[in-house]
């Protein structure tokens, strides 16, 4: 065992300077995001005003206008598609992740490459065949159609995130159960699954976020009924009138759940994005 790096310690002055610099950089990095947030509470006249007033009469009109429009349906669509595709991916993927973690097989490398490649493939590579086939299966503009195509990245994500998680669970746990006469399935069901809680939660949230954030698949495969929130927001970019306030409000509503969830799983973000390329 190596000792993990202790935080560096400089002189007190250095530390204060560094922290001040970090705060400054954080403000700079976040300003574009904060600007959008502010814009969502402004009237059109206020949006075009420069220099902006720090204290302006905040309005909720943009949000109200959104909530009474079709945007609400698209929000619900995003929610449904996200939840269902997440659940399916977990149910199918978690046993596989467990097995791949415990099972030594020669195909393991190929499977890993396959999973990584499906995860990294440019969306258009799947969109073209799905689009062509969905025409005949009547799956265009349906939530089912979206759920299926979201499995392409979410199923890989589950296996990818959960496998390193199980790698870290000591084998002695289920081995003890086997010695006590438990079947493989019982060992998995009674010993492993209950210990998977944190990993499962983080994986589920990330799956949901990836489905929620998708723009390209929904742009091509939905029309009206199954349109998701990101596509709906683009629709506010109108032919006659850039309704900036509404665009900002829509954007804010889409990013809120994402922000909340992301903070919950921030520890697992690296895992989710790189599939445990970094162990530790």
């Amino acid at each position, binding site marked *: 065992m190596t000792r993990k790096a202790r935080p560096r310690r400089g002189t007190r002055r250095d530390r204060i300077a560094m922290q001040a*610099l970090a705060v400054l950089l954080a403000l700079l990095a976040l300003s574009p995001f904060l*600007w*959008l947030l502010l814009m969502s509470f402004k009237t059109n006249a206020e949006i075009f005003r420069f220099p902006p007033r720090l204290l302006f009469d905040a309005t909720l009109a943009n949000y109200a206008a959104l909530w009474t429009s079709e945007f609400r349906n698209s929000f619900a669509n995003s929610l449904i598609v996200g939840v269902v595709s997440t659940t399916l991916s977990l149910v199918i993927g978690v046993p596989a992740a467990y097995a791949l973690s415990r099972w030594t097989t020669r195909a393991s490398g190929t499977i*890993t490459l396959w999973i*990584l490649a499906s995860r990294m*493939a440019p969306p258009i*590579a799947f969109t073209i065949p799905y689009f062509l086939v969905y025409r005949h299966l009547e799956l265009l503009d349906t939530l089912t159609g979206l759920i299926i195509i979201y499995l392409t990245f979410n199923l890989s994500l589950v296996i990818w995130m959960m496998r390193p998680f199980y790698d870290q669970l000591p084998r002695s746990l289920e081995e003890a159960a086997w010695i006590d006469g438990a079947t493989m399935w019982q060992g998995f069901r009674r010993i492993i699954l209950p210990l998977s809680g944190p990993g499962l939660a983080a994986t589920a949230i990330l799956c949901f976020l990836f489905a929620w954030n998708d*723009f390209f698949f929904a742009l091509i495969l939905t029309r009206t009924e199954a349109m998701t929130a990101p596509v709906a927001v683009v629709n506010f970019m109108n032919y006659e009138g850039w309704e900036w306030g509404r665009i900002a409000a829509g954007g804010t509503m889409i*990013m809120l759940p994402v922000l909340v969830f992301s903070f919950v799983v921030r520890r697992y973000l690296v895992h989710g994005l*790189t599939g445990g390329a970094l162990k530790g």
Partner: protein
Amino acid sequence: MKSSAAGGFRRSQHRFFALCVAPSLAVLALITLLPSLYLLATSFTPLNLTRPETQWDFSQPFVSYGQLVSDSRLHNSVWVQIKLSFWTVVLQLLIGLGLALLLNMRTRLLDALRTVFLIPMVLPPIVVAIIWKVIYTPDISPMHGIFRALGWNVPALITDPDWALTSIIIADTWEWFPFTMLMVLAGLQMMPQELLDAAKVDGATPWQLTRYITLPFIKGVLLVAGLFRLIDSIKAFPLIFILTDGGPGNLTEVTNYYSYLQAFNFSYLGFSSAITIALLAATIVLSWVIVRMVGWGAAVD
């Protein structure tokens, strides 16, 4: 007797693992392998949806690939892609590394800041695109407002040929620097303290520590992070879709975007499939490099 019981257990173990893996592999085959083959097949046809008879026309299987060779707009898009990928990956690595080194202290403030810095990365890509559309639209942009107040005459960046690609690079770098930062931070936390202590005993300055101890240690992490970003940069879509639509001219038209236009704006699905096959191949090769580098797939344990 004992060994046969163990063999029996091993067999049932194998059966169980196979049962666990089978559904995933079956589903993956159905939803990723099969479509990829379909894509490959389509790339051998001149499929154009305004002419349905072209759907399974394999009479000239390589006509689309021939067009790949002669299409100067496609070649341009590859060049744009290379520039975009190179600069975004380099900038994200530099900024991510710099920030990680800065934030690698355990204070409550910096802990909180680390989380704050993650925001750009977790935002839905379409929201990121909208944010930058606002920044780049002179009428409502706070950035242009500041420039005007300073008396600088700055053109609208996304339509300026010298700035259009740069403005995409800036937005993309903003979106993804947290990723490299996060990976470097994770790498730094795995640094054995002994190394640092030993160097300090030898009287190394903080700069020397970074240059000769820290950087070599996280070289691998940087490489993997860079590779991930590289693959991802091939997929660039929402930023270009919202900000420049590939313009002005074709200055920001990357290959992925060009393929999208061909397939879904002009219905040339056969041609677009051929482009996409090339993109997919590049992705698989890069993924393979990652798998090799990280050492996944080596026998577990």
